[in-house]
């Protein structure tokens, strides 16, 4: 059973990561810096629980806020660049944060053992969950409550007037400006919100793996972050969730019996899925299909 709870945890954290990119993508900005913000959430929250002895919830909120602030700062230079240039710039920024952790040492002695981030060796002994007797199920429930809250918040935003503004910026910046939309506020705000959500994901990740190092937060993770919403479709938040289940549940875990051939099929299936559903897994057609199942006429 622990295997399934573990899988639930992975899917939960990756959904949060995907949603963090979803917010930014809605404003038409492609970001590969989400792994960087994710790592800020991971390191900051772990330092707060391990070194300062905080509870996970406040640590998570402070770490997410820190990631959100850094993301907002990145949002400003990102205003001046678009498209491929923005992709390159955000990769560079993500790597910058990763290499910061590679160089970052801050260790203190606690109860006879030395703890804290130790550069390239990483940050070990993030033991808030086991020390407080949380079972894998408890952790999975904790994660999914947070996933549900984030999804609810974003789903509500999508349907509100703010959602229309976000998408308007993504659709056409010139038109958005001509109706008085403040591009700076919207784009920087989206970056900050995306960073905050990524920070929450990172904080949870650090605590269920108990050991983080800079290599966890590379370009591959950043690619996954944008792959989920793109594959799932930007129509609504459920697309991202479906894409995470498809990739982490089916492609990564479900195809394990295929051994090393799995990786090959993995890429091929993503390409296939994108060709069959070019507007994302959850598009107008699949929404109609699901609605049809629940309404009788």
């Amino acid at each position, binding site marked *: 059973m622990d295997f399934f709870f573990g899988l639930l945890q992975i899917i939960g954290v990756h959904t949060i990561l995907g949603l963090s990119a979803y917010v930014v993508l809605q404003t038409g900005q492609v970001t590969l810096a989400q792994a960087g913000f994710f790592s800020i959430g991971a390191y900051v929250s772990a330092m707060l629980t391990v070194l300062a002895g905080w509870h996970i919830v406040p640590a998570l909120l402070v770490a997410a806020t820190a990631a959100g602030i850094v993301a907002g700062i990145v949002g400003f230079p990102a205003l001046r660049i678009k498209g491929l240039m923005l992709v390159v710039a955000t990769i560079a920024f993500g790597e910058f944060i990763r290499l910061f952790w590679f160089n970052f040492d801050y260790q203190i002695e606690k109860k006879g053992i030395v703890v804290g981030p130790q550069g390239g060796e990483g940050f070990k002994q993030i033991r808030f969950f086991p020390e407080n007797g949380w079972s894998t199920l408890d952790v999975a429930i904790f994660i999914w409550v947070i996933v549900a809250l984030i999804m609810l918040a974003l789903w509500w935003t999508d349907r509100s*007037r*703010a959602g*229309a*503004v976000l*998408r*308007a910026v993504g*659709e*056409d910046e*010139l*038109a*958005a*400006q*001509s*109706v*008085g*939309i*403040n*591009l*700076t*506020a919207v784009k920087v705000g989206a970056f900050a919100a995306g960073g905050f959500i990524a920070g929450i994901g990172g904080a949870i990740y650090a605590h269920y793996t108990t050991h983080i190092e800079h290599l966890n937060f590379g370009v591959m993770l950043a690619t996954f972050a944008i792959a989920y919403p793109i594959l799932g479709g930007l129509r609504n938040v459920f697309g991202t969730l479906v894409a995470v289940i498809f990739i982490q549940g089916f492609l990564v875990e479900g195809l394990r019996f295929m051994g090393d051939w799995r990786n090959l099929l993995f890429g091929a299936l993503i390409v296939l899925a994108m060709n069959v559903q070019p507007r994302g897994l959850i598009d107008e057609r699949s929404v109609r299909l699901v609605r049809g199942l629940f309404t009788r006429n």
Partner: protein
Amino acid sequence: MLEIDGIAASYGNIQALRGVTLSVEEGGITCLLGPNGAGKTTLMMTIAGILKPRRGTISFLDRNITGMRPSGVVRRGIALVPENRLVFPHMNVHENLIAGAYLRLGKSKAQVRQDVDHVFARFPRLQERTKQLAGTLSGGEQQMLAVARALMARPRLLMMDEPSLGLAPLVVEEIFRIIRDLHADGTTIFLVEQNAHMALQVAHHFYLLEQGQVSFSGKPGQLSEHEVIQRAYLGKQQGRDQSATDRDQPDGTMLRSG
């Protein structure tokens, strides 16, 4: 209402506007005509704050708005219906209108809903297509949506950049009927057009813009339609035409020579 004084603007090394001076009277329809590349759209974008001028000042209701951000310009009461309509294609008609009410985001929802109803009353065709994606509307409907979206900002001055572009003659007639209606309801309109024939029918005052400079300012009738069309489409020919114009139209206000 809107005073533009000596505006110069350029794209890199290409100077698009070379000191444009004109004004828009409150309560009227002012038209700006001119050939392709004269700088009409550049002027619109500069007024809207999307482009920054190199020199000159723009003031609206006696307040200087030169170099202000686009969102600030809209807040002051100027809305632009951009060239080529630029609706948000993957959003439905209703969402397009909601995005146009950005300035009232976080304020009364009921008021915005009331504005949507108001706009729908003016454009019943849009109401029939509330849930339709804007990109799937016809050209004329998209133009209506672009106007409706701009109206959501409750502008005092509505600037329209070539609303007749690429539309069938009957649809153009309808767009101009809308322009007259909007004016009748008290909106000041600043219109950029290539369709001189239609524009001269609605304009109270018009300007000719050629090569980044205002070359004529006057009322319809002060310059023969033939002359306006020739200059609006082709630009002025150097030398010969210039002197002919001066002689033929003594009452037209000639501001500059070729």
